[in-house]
């Protein structure tokens, strides 16, 4: 499955011309089985190695999460949460990173044509040559994933190793995962596998085990199996019901009628106007497109 042509791109940011939709490309997905994740950070290192990124060597700030947050060079990050109740202590470890939403808030928020694209296989990718560093993708993301580089003021996040996937390989984090907590395949296949795993975990005593594939963003191409599927927030604040942020809807509302050419200036103008007049003027445009 090469992705060298525009036919493999189904959506581009800030572009009104319809995308090609003739090619039947299977959707892919990555599934992260939290019950098997040991928080070893192999995925973090493999991600850095594959993508030729060098993270700064920081400090310990009293936690195992290192670096302390996602950065322009750390596109994935293990987040650790100690959750205790009367019967049991859990060390909930979650691999954080881009969820590759079917309905990506970042793409919808992006004002720069072609800076964010969605491939036919479901991968959402940033094209830095078109990125203007405005940071709208950060605000637009319901999972708080993209980060703006201090070096070049461009936005970065997980590509789902689109370069590996395009030659038929699994993403680097999937390949390296020592315990098989991360797996990769067709979206339908992964949904089925995730549901099977949730069922197995229920048998093991985790009554609320569930697949996390949130509908509010149209489902995701990175999904979790959670032992405590009823409490995603306990996994370092994984949103229970993520939705594309209101900011994005606002942007879309004004971007569409004004067209692409004058977008930059108008955008600025429109925002200033918004600030002056208030939100009541803006249309809610949160439906499908």
């Amino acid at each position, binding site marked *: 499955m090469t992705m060298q042509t525009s036919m493999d791109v189904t959506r581009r940011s800030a572009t009104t011309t319809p995308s090609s939709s003739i090619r039947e490309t299977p959707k892919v997905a990555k599934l992260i089985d939290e*019950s098997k994740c040991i928080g070893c950070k*192999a995925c973090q290192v493999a991600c850095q190695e594959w993508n030729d990124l060098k993270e700064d060597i920081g400090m*310990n700030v009293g936690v195992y999460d290192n670096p302390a947050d996602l950065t322009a060079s750390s596109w994935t990050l293990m987040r650790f949460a100690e959750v205790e109740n009367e019967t049991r202590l859990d060390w909930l470890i979650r691999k954080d990173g881009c969820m590759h939403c079917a309905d990506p808030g970042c793409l919808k928020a992006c004002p720069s044509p072609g800076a964010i694209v969605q491939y036919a296989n479901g991968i959402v990718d940033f094209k830095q040559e078109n990125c203007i560093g405005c940071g709208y993708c950060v605000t637009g993301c319901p999972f708080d994933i993209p980060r703006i580089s201090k070096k070049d003021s461009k936005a970065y996040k997980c590509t789902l190793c689109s370069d590996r996937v395009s030659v038929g390989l699994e993403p680097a984090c999937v390949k390296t995962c020592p*315990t*098989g907590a991360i797996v990769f395949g067709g979206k339908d296949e992964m949904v089925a596998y995730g549901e099977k795993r949730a069922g197995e975990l229920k048998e*093991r005593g985790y009554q609320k085990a569930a697949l996390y594939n949130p509908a509010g963003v149209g489902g995701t191409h990175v999904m979790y199996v959670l032992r405590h599927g009823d409490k995603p927030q306990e996994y370092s604040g994984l949103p229970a019901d993520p939705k594309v942020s209101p900011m994005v809807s606002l942007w879309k509302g004004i971007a569409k009628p004004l067209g692409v050419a004058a977008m930059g200036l108008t955008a600025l103008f429109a925002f200033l106007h918004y600030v002056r007049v208030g939100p009541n003027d803006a249309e809610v445009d949160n439906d499908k497109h």
Partner: protein
Amino acid sequence: MTNHWVDIKNADLILIMGGNAAEAHPCGFKWVTEAMQHRKAKLVVVDPRYTRSAAVADYYAPLRVGTDIAFLAGVINHMLSNNKIHAEYVKAYTNATFLVNPDFKFDNGFFSGYSEEKRTYDKSTWAYQRGKDDFVLVDETMQDPQCVFQLMKKHYSRYTPELVSKITGTPKEQFLKVAEYIAGTHTPDKVMTICYALGWTQHTVGSQNIRAMAMIQLLLGNMGRAGGGVNALRGHANVQGITDMCAYSEVLPGYLGAPGDGDVDRETYLKARTPKPLRPNQMNFPQNFSKWHTSLMKAWYGAAATKENDFAYDWLPKRDTAYDSLAIFDRMFQGKVNGFICQGFNPIAAIPNKKKLGTAFAKLKYLVVIDPLRTETAEFWKNYGAFNDVDPSKIQTEVFRLPSSCFAEETGTFTNSSRVIAWKQRAVEPPGEAKVDSEITARLFLKLRAMYKAEPGAFADAIQNLTWTYANANMPAPEELLREINGRAIEDVLAPVDPKAPPVPKGTPPTVLVKAGEQLPGFAMLRDDGSTACGNWIYAGCFSQAGNLTARRDLADPSGLGNYPGWGFSWPANRRVLYNRAGADPAGKPWDASRRGIAWNGKAWAGVDVPDIAPALGPESGAGPFIMTPEGVARLFAVGLMNEGPFPEHYEPFETPVGTNLMCPTNPKAVSNPAARVFKGDLEQFGKAAEFPYAATTYRLTEHHHFWTKNSISNSSVQPAQFIEIGTELAKEKGIHNGDMVKVKSMRGEIKATCVVTKRIKGLDVNGKKVHHVGIPIHWGFIGVAQNGYLSNTLTPYVGDANSQTPEFKAFLVNIEKA
């Protein structure tokens, strides 16, 4: 490992205790998650800390550092009192039925024969009763009060759940829950595996920790079976191989005991190491010792090792005393060592009591460090502020630093924890002028040899006659060395004459098993008449006439058990599961038909693995499955070998937070291991709970490997700086907040680091007293791309296990305060 990595997937219960497989061996841990998913296996973790292994476990129980034997002894008591043992296995395959000398006693912390002055035992009473035929007397009913089974039952009845809980701090119900999990695998259709590592070895009772577990596995009938065994998850990628090559003073390659001063000649030496069978019809495999040893001498000294000179026996150095690492550095500290060659090892970081080590190095005339990386050891003389506060001008040691290759730059074999020897290929040249280790060794040796030729000095026969037939003398090729390790026939190897066979007509040529000059197919071909040479008998067969079998990459797994018999070569004899004869019942039928190892087919042993018994030695022979013991069975009662007693007994760490041993509270001499060696001056260096109230332990983190990966940018970025872990209760008591700098102090020194306050370390109720733990990850130092930090061994005590002399890194005392 008695079994192997992939075999973990065949287990029904995985116990992780004395280790933290998820963090230290993540890729091996995948077979744990496989067993959990596909066999519905349960994972139980027992550890002072709630680790990343515990994070995915079905059950976790805490215990106080250094109390594992009390815990395991309690499990033994639970199994024996509730009759949850595999009785047929125990009777047939262990020495449970053997009768013990009536003079053997255990009283208030001491076994019979203790000398307080020498801190050693006279082990003569720890022996079997012998009959007129010199075989051991047995009681098949196991009712005789002097039989091992009854002695064991009596010994462990003292470890009641209440007492175990008081010693270990494990809440009683949690202890019982774990005991029930373990005991639940006593039926033939269930198997438990135990994965341990340095959490058991790095104690003054380290070897007995492991023995206690081995006893449990024997009582459950889990040895020799798929999904069972006692599995040491070892450290470095080739730590198993270097152990096999026996880079230790006390053994020669293949675990052949090295001569000491008492082994005055070859005959005395061989006799002491060639046991007689203790029961009828046993294989007693060590009876072949002379073949292994003679073949080694032929490998080293070739034609110069002759019958006339006792195969150059006297050329082997004899030991007068112990020369383990702790002993070596203590000698150095005393000024008895002038030179030190340090190859791929960073002792100032890896050995306890950094201050003692630094002082010892400063007494050397010369130090040679051979390493791919900069190390703290090579720069012990350099001032790194508080991390290494020394004055170079006052250190007169001449230090050489020689750059060596890393794995990617050399061809050869590594032996993994599963005992699989696997060939690997170099990809690039070493950087700059760096050279592979074997070339450095060769060049240095040849230089010395030339000097001795030019200018005679001390005894040089062994130097001049050492075999050196390598095509390029300065660069022995790995293939050449592996062929030498495997061994070859110097003369034709003839079939032994079978005294029972009908006589052959005169003039019939003898059957030639291996032609002169050929590589040996296995250790069965070794001879003690000088006709074979073999550098390491347990590796025989790995590079035979069939070629380099360590380079095999056959992925066939006919049994589905994950044995992969065509992948590399597993010593001994390509056997994947040790003691696999015990995986079948006495009649030769596998205990569990769903996990068949080998079985007796009426004529021979056969199955998915290489039988760990002579193939034609059938069940009717009565030959036991533990062929390396003269008994033929496994030892629940250890005659002779262990230094502190034939049964594992709880002793406190040398630095104990409670001060008394609750198993013998009235004997102050048996608080800690009475047979552990303590050097002069080190006793004063042990701290007391009054001044150092907290139980400390050092450990690894999954993001790093020892002291290497602090030189790697990616690894350093995901775990950049040193930290200390304490529980929330202790933090509250001491007014310490998450992220604060803290000072941790022991009797040997102090370090400062960021504090991680966690719910994962709990205060434990030990005999009515709250004991808190302080966790100290080890990976930092004053060299590396990670943030500089203190060497954790600034804090640790200089004392080791009474048998292996592995240092007690896992249990000592500290104090902690906000810095």
